[in-house]
């Protein structure tokens, strides 16, 4: 080996030495699991009864689409996403505009409105279970005794019509803050000159919003949108805590059904197949979204 070649090898070695610890972690806890997950999803594997996974091809995936409960979970996840998504975007945008204004107490408002970011979703689930309680919940109490609208009282988590919406409300409470932060960054990035020029032209506030603010937020919309959709597809924590999929199958979602298959029915193969299905769904949707809202070049 010549000297210069040795030096070159050494030079290539330096970054790898820096990288090594992280790469070991990624390989052990992400790459290897990913590969073994693929193998499991193509296997019949009852964790308690089977000695080891037995390859069964696409059976787990095919069985998913013959499984009523899976189809319902897919439908419920879609419902959650379709309701959550627009509300999430609108609320986040509206509150970001509010927090972007120069009013008194803005710091306090910001702290209050963003606080749910640090509240674990499962604990939010506990709080809201209590709030939605049929007999001892504050929500029904307010409806009946403060607003005098007793007919609006519901068994929020126990009725098929309201249970999923209640879970969506908790998701919105927890996640809107993330959307606000992304929109705020977008708002701050809009050049002030645009508004100043508009002012000279005598443009009013609402026209500003429609012709300057919103078009310039296109990148933020894409970011917030993808983020929101993925949170919706991944919905799990508050479902487990608040309804565990019930009543009946009314709030059964993909993550929950995957978990149940793996850790309640011990059917690791099927649980893993649902996990991959969900992953592909999330990835495809975010790609589609990105393409749709791609900011024009130039």
């Amino acid at each position: 080996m010549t000297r210069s070649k040795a030096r070159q090898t050494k030079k290539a070695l330096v970054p790898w030495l820096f990288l090594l610890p992280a790469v070991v972690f990624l390989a052990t806890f992400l790459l290897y699991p990913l590969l073994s997950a693929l193998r499991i999803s193509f296997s019949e594997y009852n964790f308690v009864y089977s000695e080891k996974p037995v390859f069964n091809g696409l059976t787990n995936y095919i069985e998913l689409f013959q499984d009523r409960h899976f189809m319902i979970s897919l439908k419920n996840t879609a419902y959650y996403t379709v309701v959550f998504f627009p509300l999430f975007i609108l609320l986040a945008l509206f509150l970001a505009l509010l927090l972007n204004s120069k009013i008194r107490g803005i710091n306090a408002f910001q702290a209050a409105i963003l606080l749910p970011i640090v509240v674990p979703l499962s604990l939010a689930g506990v709080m809201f279970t209590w709030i939605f309680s049929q007999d001892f919940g504050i929500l029904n109490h307010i409806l009946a005794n403060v607003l005098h609208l007793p007919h609006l009282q519901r068994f929020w988590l126990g009725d098929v019509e309201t249970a999923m919406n209640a879970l969506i409300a908790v998701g919105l409470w927890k996640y809107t803050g993330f959307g606000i932060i992304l929109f705020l960054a977008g708002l701050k990035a809009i050049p002030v000159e645009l508004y100043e020029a508009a002012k000279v032209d005598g443009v009013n506030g609402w026209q500003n919003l429609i012709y300057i603010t919103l078009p310039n937020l296109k990148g933020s919309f894409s970011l917030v949108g993808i983020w929101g959709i993925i949170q919706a597809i991944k919905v799990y924590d508050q479902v487990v805590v608040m309804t565990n999929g019930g009543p009946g199958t009314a709030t059964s979602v993909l993550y929950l059904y995957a978990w149940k298959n793996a850790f309640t029915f011990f059917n690791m193969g099927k649980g893993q197949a649902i996990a991959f299905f969900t992953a592909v769904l999330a990835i495809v949707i975010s790609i589609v979204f990105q393409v749709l809202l791609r900011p024009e070049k130039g």
Partner: protein
Amino acid sequence: MSRRARVVVALSVLLMMLSSLGAVSAQTLKVTAEAWYYNKYKLEEAAARFQEDHPGVEFEWSKAGDFEVAPLMLAWSRDRYVADIAIVASPSEAVAFQARGLLHDFEDVLVGKYAKENWLEGFLEQCTMDGKVYAIPTDAEVMTLVGRRDFAAEAGLTDADGYIIPPKDFDELYEYLQKLTVKDETGRTVRYGMTVNWSPEYMCYAYFSGIQAMRGTIYDDEGNLDFSSPEAVELLRFWQRGVDEGLISTSSLVEHSGPRNDMQSGLACILWEDHARVIEIGHVVGPENMQIVPIPGSEENGTVSYTMSLMIPTSAEHPELAKQFVLEQLNAEWFAHDLMDRWGKLLGLKEHVEAKMDDPIWKTVFQLADNSVGLPKTVDHAKMVDIMTAEIHNMLKMQQTPEETLARIREQIAPLNLEPLG
């Protein structure tokens, strides 16, 4: 041999001797159970009493999250979880461990006072696999109705002594519910005639206790679990109609403890759950107001019972000591009666119930227990429960008729492995 090697050998021999000495002097029993078990059972006192008789025994407690035993059992099923005594939800879950040879049997210690004939038969049978007893029942429960005598008296449903007259059949029970239910002027129920525990933990027991009481068996004509008989339709129709007309509370659809809370807060008059609640609720609403009401038909046809179980994994370090602790303390009279008095929970030995036969509650419970059946242990039990829960909840929420519900259950359980094991 070099000098150094000799020193090493000498040292290691010394170490081995020391460590074996240590093992003799301090035996530690590792006990693991769901967290709630520690709150209801006087385990620490049992341990203290055991230590008096067996000096030098130490205890180590470990708590699993409530209803989160599945991951624990998974680890155990791989023989990677070390415990001397494990207390798990039901023997039907234990069957998997037995099949893999992960359990010690109790055959050698079930002699004399503890001979098999001295145990409540139904419960011990649930702990028997392949002819051997692999678990000891603890927290044994009989499915039944328990009722509020004061509410029933208001509705004129009690006899001269103030006891609720047991309804003859489900039609009469329905009339009871209509009389017991109180609604406000808007038609909203303020007091339910009944509350049924349809949570996933109880669904199976609630359903099959109804079937057993009506038909005298939980199996259909072909020997499969019954999801097709006219009685099954009748039971589901009873439930659905009761919910639809505001006579039965659906609080259990969201919360496992919902029905108990209904009873404790006076929101419901009759509870369809296990017998133990009669005592537990009595502590809140007054024991004189509580009574066991057999499910219509169950006095002749029997009901369903279930039990939690104490098991000794083969990974246990002190299996013999563990067995001693289980029998001497966890089945001692003081332990059993404390549980019965505070929580209404039963242990397996007959003598503990027989000592309390002058109490009408325990007399009824004893009769029901004697005439009860357990559910079969199957590989796909959890999956079946999940399907039943989902479909019956959907029915209670008026998404489908009883007939459709049963058809959907049959269709979904068809591919499952529900062959009785052991």
